């Protein structure tokens, strides 16, 4: 695809460098960004300069932002999440799940039914769900693979107390395979996880989901390092 406004002269090849350097005006910057999106060779040229000139940022002193900055970011994320919830309806409604998850194992079945029901609103294929049993035979979490298999929602079914200085990490384990991390989860609210592309094929009824206790930030080794507090097999419905 050619762009008439950017003829292929020496100067125009340098426009990638000028963009990274930051000398372009607003309309020129927008034109460059559009070109990055559609022209892979040009995008690589921009990446070359970002990598090479990036070292110049070394000389810029770090300045601690005000402590209120993180709270503002969290508030903005929460607002974006609320908007997404409104779009997604009940399935993504935190308030709905919070209410529903304030239950013990006796109501886990209701949780499961709700997951199936909401998941079944647009089922291109049979849903996969798992009840993750915790110590003492209680259900710790209920998980459902969302339609299409690309995401997985995990809901705390029992009142679990967050442990100081510990994170809960979710693992996908296929028979004969090492555990693969699906990310950190929250004992107080439902979390929807995007299943990494390379793990999609492993999300099937042979697989087991497990939750382990890990240092804050998650397992440092990429494998579970702490005790497994809940696990359960995926099942097709």
């Amino acid at each position, binding site marked *: 695809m050619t762009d008439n406004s950017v003829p292929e002269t020496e100067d125009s090849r340098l426009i990638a460098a000028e963009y990274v350097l930051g000398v372009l005006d607003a309309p020129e910057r927008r034109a460059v960004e559009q070109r990055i999106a559609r022209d892979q060779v040009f995008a690589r040229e921009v990446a070359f300069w970002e990598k090479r000139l990036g070292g110049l940022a070394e000389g*810029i002193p770090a300045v601690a932002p005000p402590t209120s900055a993180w709270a503002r970011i969290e508030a903005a994320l929460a607002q974006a999440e609320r908007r997404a919830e409104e779009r997604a309806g009940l399935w993504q409604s935190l308030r709905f799940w919070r209410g529903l998850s304030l239950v013990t194992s006796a109501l886990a079945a209701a949780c499961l039914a709700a997951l199936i029901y909401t998941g079944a609103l647009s089922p291109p294929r049979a849903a996969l769900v798992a009840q993750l049993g915790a110590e003492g035979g209680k259900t710790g979490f209920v998980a459902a693979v969302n339609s299409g298999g690309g995401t997985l929602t995990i809901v705390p079914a029992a009142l679990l107390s967050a442990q100081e200085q510990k994170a809960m990490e979710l693992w996908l384990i296929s028979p004969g395979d090492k555990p693969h991390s699906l990310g950190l989860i929250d004992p107080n609210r439902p979390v929807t996880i995007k299943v990494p592309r390379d793990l999609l094929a492993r999300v099937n009824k042979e697989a087991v989901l497990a939750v382990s206790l890990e240092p804050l930030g998650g397992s440092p080794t990429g494998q579970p390092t702490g005790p497994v507090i809940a696990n359960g097999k995926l099942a097709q419905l």
Partner: protein
Amino acid sequence: MDADVKRKQLAAALNRVARGDRPALRLVYDMTSAKLFGVCLRILNDRSEAEDVLQEVYLTVWNKAADFDEARASPITWLVAIARNRAIDRARSRAPSRRSEPIEAAADVADPGASAFESLASAQEQERLKSCLDEIEERQSLAIRVVFMGGFTYEELAERSGVPLGTMKSWIRRGLAKLKECLER
């Protein structure tokens, strides 16, 4: 902590953010916010605007973390590029620059003996960039450094340096062309 370990930790945290992991975003923030705030502040020279941009930066990280490719960029280079782009966009959208310090002041840099983690590029790449910048004309290399750190437009730079706009453009472009030739050698 060793720079390589930090880099791996940050890359792993970004991969978790890509899966919608909120605590991982906090980890990325704790590891990088001071550097990125410094970058925004340098370009915007206004704390409140820099704070606005910092917020946009981490929302972008939250939404775009899946685009981060460890094989193509170091995590801190990727993050600095987002922060610079956001800050430069903000600077372009406001009334003409409120910066008044002489252009040379913008080249003043902190002690380069920054902590290991601050190392954006590998030591080897850093050395290469430095030697290539030393190879080109001094006024060209100074202009390139100043523009990168301060996010000036050609117009601002020409005005502040008392050099005609066309001359400034051709200095920088020639400098970039020579730099590229040297970096690709």
